[in-house]
């Protein structure tokens, strides 16, 4: 079976590292894996999405995830959760940070940031797991590890052994930042 995980957020939130950790989890199991990233202009504070796909039985063909195909959406920001919701399978699961980042049209008063997005998505019938990854990361002393907090939260609901994820974090994070990231993972796992 191919499993499709869509990671979304705002450029600069660290979705690349998150996707690489998930990719590492899959290849550590010996599974065929594809990870599709976004580089360049859209990274400049725009809406960004990366895809992680793996198969425990055969090959992954397409590296992209289309509408109605994601088993899981991991989102760093509420508005992005809502934006990418059409990519989720009918019975798919959402792991999201409750952080809000106002896009420029909202900042400049030309658009409104919609209210109660997570509640609305839940009313749709989708399972939503949430935490405020940024507040947790801030409490750990570095807002940048919010991405790994969220990976920790996902790990708990992923069905994988925790140790498999910890090993992937060790594999993907530079030695210098490892301790902080492992703490972030734990904090997310226990959130």
């Amino acid at each position: 079976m191919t499993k499709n995980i869509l990671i979304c957020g705002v450029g600069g939130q660290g979705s690349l590292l998150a996707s690489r950790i998930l990719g590492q989890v899959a290849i550590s199991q010996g599974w065929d894996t594809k990870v599709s990233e976004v580089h360049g202009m859209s990274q400049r504070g725009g809406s960004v999405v990366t895809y992680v796909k793996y198969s425990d039985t055969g090959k992954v063909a397409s590296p992209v995830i289309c509408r109605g195909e994601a088993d899981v959406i991991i989102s760093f920001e509420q508005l992005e959760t809502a934006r990418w919701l059409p990519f989720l399978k009918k019975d798919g699961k959402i792991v999201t940070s409750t952080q809000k980042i106002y896009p420029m049209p909202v900042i400049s008063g030309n658009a409104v940031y919609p209210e109660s997005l997570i509640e609305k998505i839940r009313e749709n019938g989708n399972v939503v797991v949430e935490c405020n990854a940024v507040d947790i990361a801030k409490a750990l002393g570095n807002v940048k590890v919010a991405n790994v907090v969220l990976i920790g939260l996902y790990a708990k609901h992923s069905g994988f052994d925790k140790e498999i994820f910890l090993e992937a974090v060790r594999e993907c994070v530079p030695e210098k930042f490892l301790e902080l990231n492992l703490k972030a993972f734990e904090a997310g796992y226990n959130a």
Partner: protein
Amino acid sequence: MQDKKNKIDKNKKLLLGNAAVARGLYEAGCVFVSSYPGTPSTEITEEAANYDEIYAEWAPNEKVAFEAAFGASVAGGRSFAGMKHVGLNVAADPLFTSAYTGVNAGFVIGVADDPSMHSSQNEQDSRHYAIAAKIPMLEPSDSEECLEYTKRAFELSEKFDTPVILKLTTRISHSQSLVTISEREEVGIREYKKNESKYIMRPANAIKRHPIVEQKLKDLEDYAASNSELNRIEYGDKSIGIITAGSSYAYAKDVYGDKASYLKLGMVYPLSEKLIKEFASQVDELYVIEELDPIIETYCKALGLKVKGKDLLPVIGEYSQELIKSKLLGIEPEFSSVDATIPVRPPVMCAGCPHRGTFYVLKKLGLTVMGDIGCYTLGTQIDTTLCMGASVSMLHGFNKVRPETASKCVGVIGDSTFMHSGITGLIDIIYNNSFSTLLVLDNSITGMTGHQQNPCTGLTLKNLPAKAISIEEICRACGVENVETVDPNNITEFEKLLKAELSKDKPSVIILKRPCALLKSVKKEDYVSVDSDLCSSCRACMRIGCPCISFETGKAVVDASQCIGCGLCMKMCKFGAMKLNKRGKV
């Protein structure tokens, strides 16, 4: 789980397509890489630079990169030049004639197209270049093939005495998939022998080389027909036969699986008539699935084959399994959505971006702005963006036709873009005497593509010290008498200077010097906070379009986690509500 883990092949790595190309360069014994950064091609060269065995550099532009790598090949070393699709336009001049000369050691050009224009100004299809320049082109469909085809491209280059183009797309360059790595093959440096009839393309020699090029294409076509690894037929259900290449192969596989047969082309030029006809004869209905232009399809039609393709599939944008399902099978996806209007989130200039001050002043003075390629393309004040360097030459032409508005018109170009192709435009301004005012936005790095060194930064790609070329001295050497440098965050000083230079009936260059806020060397010790008692809610601070500032509570709020304390918003506030604070130790 442990059992599975033990089965993992240590030589299997999850690599980005671009990193796999770099690995291919390493394994093929490549010794020389010269490139200009451009999304989605940049990481090939960055990754290649991590191998000690490969000399790798950023050239000032793609033409120079191409010629440098070609020189390395003639000298006898396997070489590579990497660029994005529009970069190949810049390198097109040497490209065409290098088909005539051929190579000494293998020479491979990596070009990455950007269907859907994730980070580009057009979505041209580079395959046209292979056809026009008569140079073979390989197109991988995943990272494993990126590595494999890179190595094979060197073999073909030497076997057929021709440059070889390796064509990627954003989706291949920026997707990771599993590759099997192996050792580097040391191929050494080939002997260089002077060979006038081969390397000097004066007419008498070139006339003799052209028939050789045509013969090579015929030989390559035979190779394409006989090489089943590169051009692979996969027979499944024969009611539908699909001819495809690159990422389109992956999408087609995703949709049809073994319910179709495939002719998966690794060599997209030249195409093999024999192979295509053979495949077509075995299937009931023939489809061509290819992104962008109908190149394979047109070829098939010229062979008299009945084929479905662009009558159903678009010539615009990236493909996906959803698109193929919808257009070819009429199947639409089922999905959820939320009952709310979702505002768009366009890319913006980062918090603390040095271009913000520049564009504030340009907007305030209501100037017409000829734009260029870089982060400053995001500036809302610009009037045009065409290609690298066009800001300078377009400014010249614009002012020649409208001399009366020359004092209300500027060009903006970044430091790396100026080095790439701004200098020749500046020479046009001086030589042909237009009273143009050019702004060089020098943020001390190549920003948009993710922080590459350039000739002005004083460091090479391998982070070795280099002579930092002075933009100011270049401008003076080109004959510009009025060259001034100012900090763009000093908006009062900049505005005064700009007004003065615009009023002169001589050309001027103003260098706006302030490093990119994302550079590690830029200290983020300060941040701005708002005294809400003093804030009058006048929204004057919003004029700079900073993503840190919002008005959720009716008063200005600055997001301290994003703010780097550039202080530009404080200069907008007439009520002294914004204050600079020192950040505690993080």
